């Protein structure tokens, strides 16, 4: 490439690209992708994990969608929406959209979908479903949704509520609905052989225009070394979830290209503040924060695939503050703080964490325990599988634990009401406040944001809440954001930009 001016090269490439777009459609562009988790079902409401939604986003559309590196909220099945009063959301639906079976998309389908959400037999979005008071369809292309309480982030969630066809969902056997998706999405399901592959073909009548890649073959390979072997042997074009321990091998391989982006998920430590326990003293919380050498964790445990976090939300989330800084790593100061708080000899605490959920989760917990030991805090390790860990979080049984989070709504309010608000069964707050943290100031400030409609006002209030939680109260100790790693075969003309939510949306991928 030496000697060719870069500008010239770029313009030739661009011209080529445009020519390709203009030129006659290529014979069947196809793509083979290996993903790290298998779909559980083809029912868009039965699995609220991003791994599941990632498949569904190709067969179905939400009223809204998210695109771009920052996850910008854009119209999809609804062309625009209004929020006339604090309980009402009005969506104007797109006209002329059809489902894969030819049925027209109307407001009745939207009503049916939202009513279906609160049925625990078929839905994991019962929380969203149950917050809805009524759904009205004044005409075929308008929907008015009223919520029971004020939910400022209601529209922000509309990219993950996928609209189903009322007629065919009701008419078909429930078992059939679980395996055969009928949506409005950019792809139609060709075949799903459980445990083996999912193949899809382009929906030529897609309302956004037919996708460029006509055939997609998705192969779930949960075993990371096998996924790597599939990539290295050239069997697949794109691989998601490259494990950090194999990253160097992938990067050294001349046939592969690595695609990386900061993940939205932050990893942090949560603590209770039961009266009389050492953790109730903010000086102790600060001491723990300062005793942890996060730089070393990122370098040694995460092998450089992490970004420091000074708060729980990530930059695109409403409530994120640029000016928050991590407390410095300073074990001497930590010891002093412990002494001031009346624990010169330290104390004992149980540190819980999952061992099969986040990147290097068990190793991080072990490292934290070691740092704490150096300032005199004896952390008893209690590391367990996520299937046991999360129910314990839900029941509020823990004292001090590692957890990771990101919010699909891009609004910090929902996260805080589940993770940081005092547990309240009546109101449904604090459902995942695993160590029973409770602070009246945090609760009051958070509750005051629930009826804020104006985005700017909301942002200001949430930023203030964030500052209070991170600086004054040390509600949580943030550690880092994970990094999402993908690998793509070079020289196959694939253009792929990872999404912030880790979904694989194939209409956004192109191939020469």
């Amino acid at each position, binding site marked *: 490439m030496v000697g060719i001016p870069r500008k010239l090269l770029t313009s030739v490439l661009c011209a080529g690209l445009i020519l390709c777009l203009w030129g006659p459609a290529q014979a069947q562009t196809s793509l083979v992708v290996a993903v790290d988790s*298998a779909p*559980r*079902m083809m*029912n868009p409401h*039965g699995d*609220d994990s991003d791994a599941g939604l990632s498949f569904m986003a190709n067969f179905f559309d939400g009223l809204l969608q998210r695109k771009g590196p920052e996850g910008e909220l854009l119209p999809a099945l609804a062309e625009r929406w209004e929020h006339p009063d604090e309980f009402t959301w009005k969506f104007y639906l797109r006209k002329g959209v059809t489902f894969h079976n030819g049925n027209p998309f109307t407001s009745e389908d939207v009503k049916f979908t939202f009513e279906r959400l609160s049925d*625990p*037999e*078929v*839905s*994991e*979005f*019962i*929380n*969203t479903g*149950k917050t809805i008071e009524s759904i009205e369809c004044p005409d075929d292309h308008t929907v008015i949704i009223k919520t029971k309480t004020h939910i400022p982030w209601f529209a922000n969630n509309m990219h993950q509520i996928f609209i189903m066809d009322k007629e065919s969902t009701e008419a078909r056997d429930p*078992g059939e609905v*679980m*395996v055969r998706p009928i949506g409005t999405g950019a792809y139609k399901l060709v075949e799903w*052989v*459980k*445990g*083996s*592959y999912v193949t899809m073909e382009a929906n030529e009548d897609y309302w956004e225009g037919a996708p460029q890649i006509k055939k997609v073959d998705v*192969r*779930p*390979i*949960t*075993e990371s*070394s*096998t*996924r790597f*072997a*599939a990539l*290295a*042997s*050239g*069997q697949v074009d794109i691989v998601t979830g490259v494990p950090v321990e194999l990253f160097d091998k992938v990067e050294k391989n001349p046939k592969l290209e690595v695609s990386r982006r900061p993940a939205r998920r932050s990893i942090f430590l949560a603590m209770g503040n039961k009266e009389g326990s050492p953790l109730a003293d903010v000086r102790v919380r600060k001491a723990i924060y300062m005793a942890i050498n996060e730089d070393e964790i990122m370098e040694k445990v995460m092998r450089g695939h992490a970004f420091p976090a000074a708060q729980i939300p990530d930059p695109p989330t409403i409530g994120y503050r640029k000016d928050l800084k991590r407390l410095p790593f300073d074990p001497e100061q930590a010891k002093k703080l412990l002494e001031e708080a009346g624990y010169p000899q330290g104390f004992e605490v149980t540190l819980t964490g999952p061992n*099969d959920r986040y990147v290097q989760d068990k190793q991080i917990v072990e490292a934290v325990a070691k740092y704490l030991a150096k300032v005199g805090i004896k952390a008893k390790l209690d590391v367990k*599988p996520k*299937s*046991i860990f*999360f*129910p314990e979080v*839900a029941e509020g049984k823990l004292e001090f634990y590692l957890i990771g989070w990101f919010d699909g709504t891009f609004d910090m309010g*929902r996260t805080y009401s*589940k993770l940081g608000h005092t547990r309240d*069964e009546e*109101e*449904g*707050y604090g*459902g*995942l406040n695993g160590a029973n943290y409770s602070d009246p100031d945090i609760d009051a400030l958070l509750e005051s944001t629930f009826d804020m409609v104006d985005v700017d006002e909301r942002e200001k209030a949430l930023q203030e809440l964030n500052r209070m939680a991170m600086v004054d109260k040390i509600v949580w100790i943030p550690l880092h954001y994970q990094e999402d790693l993908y690998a793509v075969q070079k020289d196959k003309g694939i253009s792929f930009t990872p999404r912030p939510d880790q979904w694989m949306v194939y209409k956004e991928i192109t191939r020469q």
Partner: protein
Amino acid sequence: MGTYIARRLVQGIIVLLAVSMICFFIFRYTGDPVVTMAGLYATQQEREEVRRMLGLDKPMIEQYGLFLWNALHGNFGKSYVTRVPALGLILERFPATFELAFTAVLIAFCTGVGLGILVSIKPYALQNRIIMAASLGGISIPTFLIGILLIMVFSVFLGWLPPFGRGETVQVGFWRTGLLTWSGLKHLLLPALTLALYQLAVILRLTRAGMREVLAEEYIKTAWSKGLYPFSVIFKHALRNAMIPVVTISGLQFGEIIAFSIVTETIFQWPGMGNLLLTSIYETDQPVIVTYIMIAAVIIITMNTLVDILYAIINPKIRYD
């Protein structure tokens, strides 16, 4: 024989009951499915509603009774994760596992017996000593290592064979087979080899031991001195008598391979029952786990009984009274 089979049947039912009870109670303590099923943002009340829907709020004994009653009617409950009947979910995976196990046993049996005979004829020849030493490796190297090594060599370095999955499959009635396409066969080779290696080594050593014992017998010496062809002496006179333990072991192993090829299926992402079991354990999908273990118990009990019966047919000296 009739009373024997009847007795085995009764024993089998008792074993199944015990297995179901143990699994049912153990896997209740491996995690709570409600938190996932209600969704990440569910409130406590919503979680309770899901718990009621699943019947998990009832006392354990009542839950177990209900499970047994439904199981008697062929209903093993719905998977918590995929929300379809657990039995169907597992049976759907059976062809893949059966084809893998069958191919593995076939490879192990043919190669094992063949090499066993070869080695027993000239036990002290150098190449035969090497085979025996290698068979020790086959017994002692764990399956996951063999699998990963085979993938490294044949998929990553040489690029000859695909490292994962079943390749193209064809639906024949209810059976989805990979044996009828070239791609299916290519995908089958590595996992089948991995699974076969241990069995191969065991069968080889058994055949060798049996053959060496039989070859020293008087009637074999008589056969040689009569001037019979070596083929006739080895296969007709010696091998048939050396085969009884080999057949027994192969039969028993076949049942076990079907039920427990979990490691191999995971490494090669083979879409069989073992792979499903492991995923289900990760996701606390209790109905699938319990149903799977019950099916595995049925397979193993059936295979054992069949082997016992076959044994009596091959060797008339054995009697079951």
